[in-house]
């Protein structure tokens, strides 16, 4: 009976994984296909790394990847700083005028349709340009600013929930021992919420890295991000080098997720250890 049930569970799991990852697997396999036609497997010359080599020499793709990386990294830094500040004020100053409105507004971009966010940002940038002459045109700067506005919301949520678990008495104790408020923040609060800030950074990076809707509103000529490039290439017909590019991206994301997961497991273990230490009866 038990054996039978585990068989059911096993096949269900296999089906799930196949359902989720077979398309990706197909794509990875076809990235080694020698044929120029994406759907035809050229068994004579495959597998080959030709498309990867071509990718490496394709200036267009390389510069788009570089731009995407730069925007994602800058966006993550900006979102983490602003998001942490917002989370801190929401969590630690519970009695200020307009707190509820502030809380709603900071997290609104999470639920707002991206088309609306993108369009409103575009209108804002155009209006600003007409009024002040800045920003002059749409480029990497406007993309980064736009990405910060929505990834910040995610940072607020992550950091605020962590901050809620940090005992206020710790901050008070530091202040009582002579640390000024900003020192308390850097010496006590920041180290304790660092894991949340790190996850917020990674989250913001990924959100920016694969965003296309908002980006297409606020990007200009000469500032094409990787998702935009892939999208435009696919519209002209799928070429096999896209498969190679996608495979590299999937590999990169997998490694990142794995690292994050390992970090979380490590943290959970430490937390369990600490919890056990608390539960140990007094000598």
């Amino acid at each position, binding site marked *: 009976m038990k054996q039978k049930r585990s068989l059911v569970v096993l096949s269900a799991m296999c089906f799930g994984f196949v359902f989720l990852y077979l398309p990706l697997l197909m794509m990875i396999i076809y990235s080694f296909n020698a044929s120029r036609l994406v759907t035809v497997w050229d068994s004579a010359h495959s597998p080959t790394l030709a498309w990867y080599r071509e990718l490496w020499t394709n200036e267009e793709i390389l510069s788009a990847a570089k731009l995407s990386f730069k925007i994602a990294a800058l966006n993550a830094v900006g979102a983490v700083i602003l998001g942490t500040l917002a989370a801190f004020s929401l969590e630690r100053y519970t009695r200020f005028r307009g707190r509820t409105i502030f809380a709603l507004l900071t997290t609104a971009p999470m639920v707002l349709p991206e088309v609306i966010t993108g369009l409103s940002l575009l209108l804002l940038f155009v209006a600003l340009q007409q009024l002040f002459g800045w920003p002059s045109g749409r480029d990497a700067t406007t993309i980064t600013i736009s990405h910060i506005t929505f990834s910040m919301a995610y940072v607020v949520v992550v950091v605020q929930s962590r901050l809620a678990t940090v005992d206020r008495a710790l901050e008070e104790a530091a202040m*009582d021992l*002579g640390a000024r408020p900003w020192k308390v923040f850097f010496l006590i609060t920041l180290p304790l919420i660092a894991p949340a800030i790190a996850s917020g950074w990674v989250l913001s990076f990924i959100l920016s890295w694969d965003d296309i809707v908002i980006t297409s509103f606020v990007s200009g000529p000469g500032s094409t991000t990787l998702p935009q490039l892939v999208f435009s290439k696919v519209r002209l017909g799928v070429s096999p080098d896209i498969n190679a590019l996608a495979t590299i991206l999937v590999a990169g994301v997998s490694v990142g997720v794995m690292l994050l997961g390992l970090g979380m497991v490590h943290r959970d273990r430490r937390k369990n250890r600490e919890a056990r230490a*608390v539960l140990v009866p007094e000598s």
Partner: protein
Amino acid sequence: MTLEVTRQQTDSHSVGSPYVRLDGLTKKFGDFTAVKEVSLDIARGEIFCLLGGSGCGKTTLLRMLAGFEAPTTGSIFIDGVDVTQVPPYERPVNMMFQSYALFPHMTVAQNVAFGLYQDGVSKDEARDRVADILGLVRLGGYEKRKPHQLSGGERQRVALARSLVKRPKLLLLDEPLGALDKKLREHTQFELVNIQNILGVTFIIVTHDQEEAMTLGTRIGVMRAGEILQIGSPTDIYEFPNSRYVADFIGSVNLVEGRLVEDEPGHVRIDCPQFGCTVFVDHGVSAPADSIVSVAIRPEKIQISRECPEGADNVVSGTITGIAYLGDVSRYLVTLATGAVVRVTLPNIFRHETRLTIEDAVWLSWHGSAAVVVTR
């Protein structure tokens, strides 16, 4: 009452000029008044205990002293300096938190040295002072440990060391022994007093545990609903409570109402219908004749016997309806003919005693000095 007043006066003379002074301190949170018009003088080197149930405002008072809450009105003086507006990081005051609030990402040594580094103490001096204070709380060799590697008692000592290492003028302790189990608590109580004696720091302790307040405090302030009801030495508070609340809150007590029938400067007689007799008190009270007062008699001040004792005052008869044998003492519940139940505590002095048993008819009696008359 007159006796109590003279006692308090001698007390305040013997402890010297005030070192910490609270002047009309009030704290309101919206409509709620947490602390109401508290004025208090505390002498240098004193251990002052604020005792009260939860929500009585004792913690708010402590947080105002630390600087975490700004008083609505009133001022705080420490060593003659008005610190009412001084932020917590500039006050010569340190606090030991109820949760200890040890920084989880720092070692024991880093925790203790934290306050010193904020003052710009050099590395060498900080190391020496940390070693000294850790030696004092018997935690030498624990420098490299993290808080989660310590037991509850060890954490408590680290918190104490951290709050003492800056040699504050005033140390505030919020339920310092609350998180420890009973055995450890008894041991730590004496250790705390010992350390206070060595360093001579003035302590203000907040607690809801009357036993803790009695053993630690040189003086106790009993708080209720934001006000201090009575201030005095543990003996004062226990033997001369000034109100029904204090009498009832500290220890166990038999409280009965009565009418003042004989009011002389040297003694009074109170007619207590619940006892079915008059209670003779061998000192005068500051209440007009015929007024309704409360009589408080501690259970251990009542004698119990099988034969009717001599004398007409302060004698009642009843039946034992409950016994709790606690080893060192036994507690008896005696039901009187009027239906009132009197609590009596007797020490178990002899091992082979013919003990009183349930349903025994007994006589209760007490000395004229045993009863305390409270008017509010």
